[in-house]
């Protein structure tokens, strides 16, 4: 099982961080390996996932979407129904409990869409931890409601005004905070990215998505799916869905954000259109200029607006275990409308990318085939952005 003991997935991953943080990463890895094997800890996580988060989330057979697409049977993994409205809480709950075991009384996090920030603030409130959330000012503007949520939950939201004022810059600031306060602070990374052991820890806490989906589909149909589809920003919901199926003959498709279109340069399609390099502690695919400076990512979905991606996805891309594609803002909006109208489910704009790609996948499959799409979050947070975008495209009836 990857990663290897250097935190590598093939050539990807690693620990490219300032020396000040290295002892903290080594401590975290040691603590995680010890604590995650502890039966008491596992019971604790399981209890909170069931009674607090509301797991298992349903695996819903989307009859009307299936009919609308006219091909394979579509099942939706309803992470939007998890507490706080997205899959993010699976990870923040695990890391919050881990931080408590490690006697770190303060937790910090970066957030883009605000979902990870809300999920972190929620767990901090639940566990009585001090909590600071770093968020770019551009995202604060786009995701005002989530800012209010975080503050109501007792977290401080710290605006970040450097660079593009989005997720990557929030992550820089969170890392700088961690460098400064590492002795008593745990950094709750929000996706399967960053330095080892984070990609492994976040994957393990998110793997509950795929474990449940596999068991649920088996119970309902006795079968494996032909294909899994999930959106990829950093890639935690996709990795969470894929992981339990790693050894199975199941196709993995990760959908990135093509923004205004790949050729426009305004996109977040790291795996589809990026190149290899080091960002935020890991060697992975990223968006960069020829000089190795990190480029700004663009997507209507703030949770996908990141110029890097988890190292295990880079490994999956190179080995062909998963394929990665990209859909544009406009296509994602079509996906948003499609799911809303056929099933009465408003998807998060991030998840709408995965839904949108179903339209391209469906013709490749027959009616006996099964596709599971991960609905990583609900769309309430995106109402203003969607209303604005649909108005711009003259389609707000």
């Amino acid at each position, binding site marked *: 099982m990857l990663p290897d003991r*250097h935190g590598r997935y093939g050539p990807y991953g*690693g*620990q*490219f*961080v*300032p*020396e*000040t*943080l*290295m*002892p*903290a990463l080594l401590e975290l890895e040691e603590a995680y390996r010890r604590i995650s094997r502890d039966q008491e800890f596992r019971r604790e996580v399981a209890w909170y996932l069931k009674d607090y988060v509301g797991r298992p989330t349903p695996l819903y057979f989307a009859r009307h979407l299936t009919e609308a697409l006219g091909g394979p049977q579509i099942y939706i993994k309803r992470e939007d129904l998890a507490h706080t409205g997205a899959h993010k809480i699976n990870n923040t709950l695990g890391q919050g409990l881990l931080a408590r075991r490690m006697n770190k009384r303060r937790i910090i996090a970066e957030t883009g869409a605000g979902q990870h920030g809300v999920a972190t603030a929620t767990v901090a409130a639940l566990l009585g931890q001090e909590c600071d959330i770093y968020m770019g000012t551009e995202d604060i503007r786009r995701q005002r409601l989530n800012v209010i949520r975080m503050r109501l939950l007792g977290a401080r939201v710290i605006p970040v005004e*450097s*660079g593009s004022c989005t997720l*990557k810059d929030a992550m*820089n600031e969170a*890392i*700088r905070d961690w*460098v*400064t*306060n*590492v*002795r008593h602070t745990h950094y709750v990374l929000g996706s399967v990215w960053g330095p080892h052991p984070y990609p492994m820890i976040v994957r393990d806490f998110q793997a509950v998505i795929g474990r449940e989906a596999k068991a649920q589909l088996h119970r309902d149909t006795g079968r494996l799916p032909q294909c899994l589809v999930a959106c990829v920003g950093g890639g935690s919901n996709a990795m969470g869905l894929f992981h339990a199926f790693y050894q199975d003959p199941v196709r993995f498709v990760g959908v990135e954000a093509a923004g205004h279109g790949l050729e426009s340069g305004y996109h977040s399609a790291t795996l589809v259109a990026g190149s290899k*390099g*080091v*960002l*935020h*502690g890991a060697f992975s695919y990223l968006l*960069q200029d*020829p*000089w*190795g*400076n*990190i480029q700004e990512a663009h997507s209507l979905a703030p949770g996908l607006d990141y110029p890097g991606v988890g190292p295990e996805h880079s490994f999956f891309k190179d080995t062909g275990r998963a394929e990665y594609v990209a859909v544009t803002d406009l296509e994602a909006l079509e996906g948003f409308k499609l799911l809303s109208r056929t099933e009465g489910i408003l998807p998060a704009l991030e998840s709408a990318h995965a839904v949108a790609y179903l339209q391209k996948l469906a013709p490749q499959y027959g009616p006996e085939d099964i596709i599971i799409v991960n609905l990583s979050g609900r769309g309430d947070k995106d109402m203003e952005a969607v209303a604005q975008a649909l108005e711009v495209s003259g389609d707000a009836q």
Partner: protein
Amino acid sequence: MKRIEAAFRRLKKQGEKALIPFITAGDPDLQTTKALALEMAERGADLLELGIPFSDPLADGPTIQAASNRALKMGVHLQEVLELAGQIRQETEIPLVLMGYYNPILQYGLERTAQEAKRLGVDGFIIPDLPLEEAGPWRQAAMAAELAPIFLAAPTSGAARIKKAGHLTRGFLYYVSVTGITGARQALPADLVAALKEVRTLVKCPLAVGFGISTPEQVQGLAPYVDGVVVGSAIVQRVARLKGPELIKEVGDFIAALKAPLRK
């Protein structure tokens, strides 16, 4: 590498400690950086540290972040910094150390960076986001080009890592004074002197201390415990504030004031 070693040997003989000023190359432009470098060499700097601009300098505080952004806007990248180092080398023999994040060096190519740096008269590199665990390929490329791979140790490192860093580093070991990012500070940690005394017992190589050091008084307080002192943000603040001959004179005077307590 040889120039760095020779500088520390010479200073030791004279009973002096090294002043190692840092500025970001290309802030506000390459010409000014060159003039500043030569002035600092003239006024008491013993080694020069030039920053390579990067879009995401996550070990740096607001002062050096802003300097990095100004330099990037001038189109200054690793190649321009290497060329600038070459120009400075034609006018002075002061040891030149480049400080930059890993990705730009990785994209330029580790061997290519090391070979060109050597050809142009650079003596060493500090890469703040390349810890010992990941430094193998770079260290090999640097050593092959007789460039010093300079490693850092931090207050969180612990004795075992400090020993290892002291063993692998060349030129000097860079001890990070604070648990934190770069930036001028009013007060340094109360336990810094004790920490430096301990590091002394763990490593044999020359020891320099940096991060947060901004006044001649702070330099004086640390001088007995180290072989060199790095001052960065306090100089970069002056670069941000002043221009032209006034800037050159102010930085020169500041260097002289910082160096004074390092002379016996």
